[in-house]
């Protein structure tokens, strides 16, 4: 049993931000937690699932984020506390339900936890959930460190119950995936009872049905709740100030940027002239508190990630407060002092602060920096992202690419989100030509597949992972079938939500809590929908290519399931199926041979080209023993021997 549940009140532990959030949920007495995996949010649900049986919780990986919010909302309607967790993109998916939920209101405390990814460290966009707080007109709170990540979540539940509406608790990668010291609180031992009351008057918020109508009445009520939240924010212990009474510059910040700002003040050696107002409650802004601080200075630097969300809200307030606090000069994103894209760091904030203070900030010794830059340029070759050794995706895209190339009609692949997104890179033979949201590959392909009417005669292929198939691939497939679109959908079934750490999904025989669950069979579903379906193993490229080619020639919607377990999955990791070797006498990578097909084109990290011997070699440490390189070697020099 982990410290997450066993840790006693008062104990100090090193927790990852997501563990701190999970502990906060336990200390808040949350009964239901639902989410969909997505970096950097996944460990919150994972950690809660691990302790769910001891903690008397229900935890699930929902089919998608909209359903996760719906599942969590049901718990709230029945009087229980619930959270729903997702990466930022998930809020987009859930937003339709959310816009209705904030009108109907909630009962048991309910907190939405989106984890944003400034700098897109593990994403293909850097959109942020904060904008949704304004759109949804709900309170937004953001933790400034690891302790607060735990403590604020508990407080967010009290707030949600006080105003009877959803509260957004936003995290970012550098909090969720960073670790810091946390002092634990008490986990309450309660046995909450679920009961959904609906027999009261339609407008009764506790006893009536939960609906979003009458809209104008409920919208007004919702705005009153937001005003109440603002009043509570005025006294929040999570809004703190450190610095002189009348600072030369006031830094206003929140979330992960708090730690950068604090360090930047230190780097500029400016503790005696710069004040730091850290806001935990970032929407709506507490007007009186802001007014009090605006009065103390004329120069304000706003530090936040990514867009000028707080900055714009602060400027509106400052304009309203101008008669009371005077005219202020704001520095931040609009002024160009702080970048408006990417993630921040202490250096960027220090440079901005130094500029305003009339100082210079030179982080690195110039001579050293020049020398190190030169050395790194010549001796540290770039490490591009690639599929892991033994990854079935490399094998799948090898076949997809080769068949499309041989077909010679400019066929292309529409992709979406997963490890296989990387197939737009050389590791996937640059196969993906469109790449957008979850499930979008098949949706976009469905559209392309109807353009024959306008002369489009290129073969249209989509790829979709097994978890993505259930998340949002199915409606796209249904659309393609119903509209007789001509597409070949390849489902890259690696038996788990691979990219985020093998979370369960509806196609697997187990749920988040480890219970046996009915596994929904993807081929059966696709056949029932009306598609022509084939299943193959991408580690057998000849058969795979034959099957794919046959499907490509057929009209209508075809589904090819390329099934092979992820090389990193717990059941496969570290276990080689084959011992690989290269017969140096047969390898003809040079001298009128294959021109290093295995290393130059296939590019598995487990292979190396030996410049002296002029042959391919196997890197024993890296090779995962999948056997695929033996299947592609044209001269049969690479051989595989089954590991006993």
């Amino acid at each position, binding site marked *: 049993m982990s410290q997450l549940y066993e840790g006693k009140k008062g104990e100090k532990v*090193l927790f990852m931000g997501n563990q701190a959030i999970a502990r906060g949920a336990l200390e808040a007495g949350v009964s239901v937690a639902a989410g969909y995996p997505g970096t950097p949010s996944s460990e919150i649900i994972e950690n809660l699932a691990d302790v769910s049986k001891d903690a008397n919780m229900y935890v699930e990986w929902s089919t998608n984020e909209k359903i996760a919010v719906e599942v969590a909302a049901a718990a709230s309607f029945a009087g229980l506390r619930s959270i729903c967790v997702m990466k930022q993109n998930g809020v987009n998916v859930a937003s339709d339900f959310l816009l209705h939920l904030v009108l109907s209101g909630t009962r048991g405390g309910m907190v939405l936890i989106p984890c944003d990814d400034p700098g897109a460290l593990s994403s293909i966009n850097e959109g942020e959930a904060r904008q949704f707080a304004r759109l949804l007109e709900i309170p937004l709170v953001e933790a400034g460190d690891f302790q607060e990540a735990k403590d604020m979540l508990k407080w967010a539940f009290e707030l949600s119950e006080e105003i009877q509406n959803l509260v957004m608790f936003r995290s970012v990668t550098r909090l969720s995936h960073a670790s810091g010291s946390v002092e634990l609180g008490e986990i309450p031992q309660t046995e909450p009872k679920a009961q959904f009351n609906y027999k009261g008057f339609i407008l009764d918020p506790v006893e009536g049905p939960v609906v979003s109508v009458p809209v104008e009445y409920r919208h007004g009520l919702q705005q009153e709740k937001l005003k109440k939240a603002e009043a509570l924010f005025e006294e929040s212990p999570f809004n703190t100030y450190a610095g002189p009474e009348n600072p030369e510059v006031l830094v206003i910040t929140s979330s992960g940027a708090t*730690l950068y700002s604090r360090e930047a003040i230190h780097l500029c050696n400016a503790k005696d002239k710069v004040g730091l107002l850290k806001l935990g409650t970032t929407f709506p802004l507490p007007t009186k508190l802001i007014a009090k601080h605006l009065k103390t200075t004329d120069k304000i630097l706003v530090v936040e990630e990514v867009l000028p969300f707080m900055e714009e809200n602060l400027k509106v307030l400052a304009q309203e407060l101008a008669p009371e606090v005077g005219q202020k000069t704001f520095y931040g994103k609009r002024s160009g002092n702080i970048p408006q894209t990417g993630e921040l760091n202490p250096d960027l904030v220090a440079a901005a602060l130094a500029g305003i203070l009339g100082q210079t900030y030179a*982080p690195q010794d110039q001579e050293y920096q020049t020398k190190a830059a030169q050395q790194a340029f010549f001796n*540290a*070759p*770039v490490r591009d992202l690639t599929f892991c050794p033994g990854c079935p995706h490399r094998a799948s895209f090898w076949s997809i690419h080769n068949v499309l190339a041989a077909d010679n009609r400019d066929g292309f692949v529409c992709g979406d989100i997963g490890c296989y997104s990387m197939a737009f890179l050389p590791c996937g033979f640059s196969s993906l030509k469109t790449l957008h949201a979850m499930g979008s590959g098949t949706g976009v392909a469905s559209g392309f597949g109807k353009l024959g009417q306008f002369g489009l005669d290129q073969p249209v292929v989509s790829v979709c992972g097994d978890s993505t198939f259930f998340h949002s691939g199915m409606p796209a497939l249904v659309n393609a079938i119903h509209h007789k679109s001509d597409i070949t959908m390849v489902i890259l079934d690696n038996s788990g939500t691979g990219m985020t750490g093998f979370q369960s999904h509806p196609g697997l025989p187990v749920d988040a809590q480890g219970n046996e669950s009915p596994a929904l069979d993807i081929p059966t579903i696709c056949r029932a929908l009306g598609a022509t379906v084939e299943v193959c193993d991408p580690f057998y490229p000849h058969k795979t290519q034959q099957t794919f080619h046959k499907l490509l020639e057929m009209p209508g919607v075809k589904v090819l399931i390329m099934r092979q377990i992820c090389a990193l999955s717990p059941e496969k990791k570290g276990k080689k199926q084959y011992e690989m070797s290269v017969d140096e006498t047969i390898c003809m990578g040079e001298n009128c041979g294959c021109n290093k097909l295995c290393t130059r084109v296939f590019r598995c990290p487990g292979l190396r080209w030996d410049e002296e011997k002029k042959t391919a070699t196997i890197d024993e440490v890296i090779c995962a023993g999948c056997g695929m390189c033996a299947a592609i070697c044209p001269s049969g020099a690479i051989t595989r021997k089954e590991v006993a």
Partner: protein
Amino acid sequence: MGTATLTKDPYNLIITGVGGQGNVLASRVLGNLLSDKGFSITIGETFGASQRGGSVMSHMRISAGESWSPQIPKGQADMVVALEPIEALRVLHTYGHPGVKVISNTRSIYPVGVISGDSKYPSMDELQKTIEGLTEQAWFINATDAAMELGNPIFGNIMMVGALAKTGVLPIDRDGFEKVMLRTMGEKKTPVNLKAFDMGAEMIN
């Protein structure tokens, strides 16, 4: 807090390597060990997409006082522990300064661009000289080969932890390590990790 003290506060440690080398685990073990001694620890990590064959880096701030940023400011690393040698050089480029120290594994993992022939991997001699020229002190150990003796290259990460302990730059002791192992890995896996820790320490002169 015990008697342990820091040579510098905050002490800035970077652990770097390639996805799959156990970088994150090494940083967690060290973080837990130093946290047990009463230090305030912040660790910033890059993983997720970066674990797919890319460079992985953990920034650790160790302080007797407050929490520091999960990203170390440029040019302010005190020690770089590299599970892969060119990753040491990559980190020095951004976070190095003339007083920095490095412990590097000597076993290379070729970037995909090197495998395909688009770029060249330097010789180990050249790489060692380059790293020595950019550091106050540098140690090179073949942790991967030693780990293979224990049956799995993954133990290279714990050997690097043992090596770091032996350099004495941080208050890391074998007992503290054992305590963390027992708590996080359990009794069954602790002995082999202790062995890896000892083997790493022995490789530092």
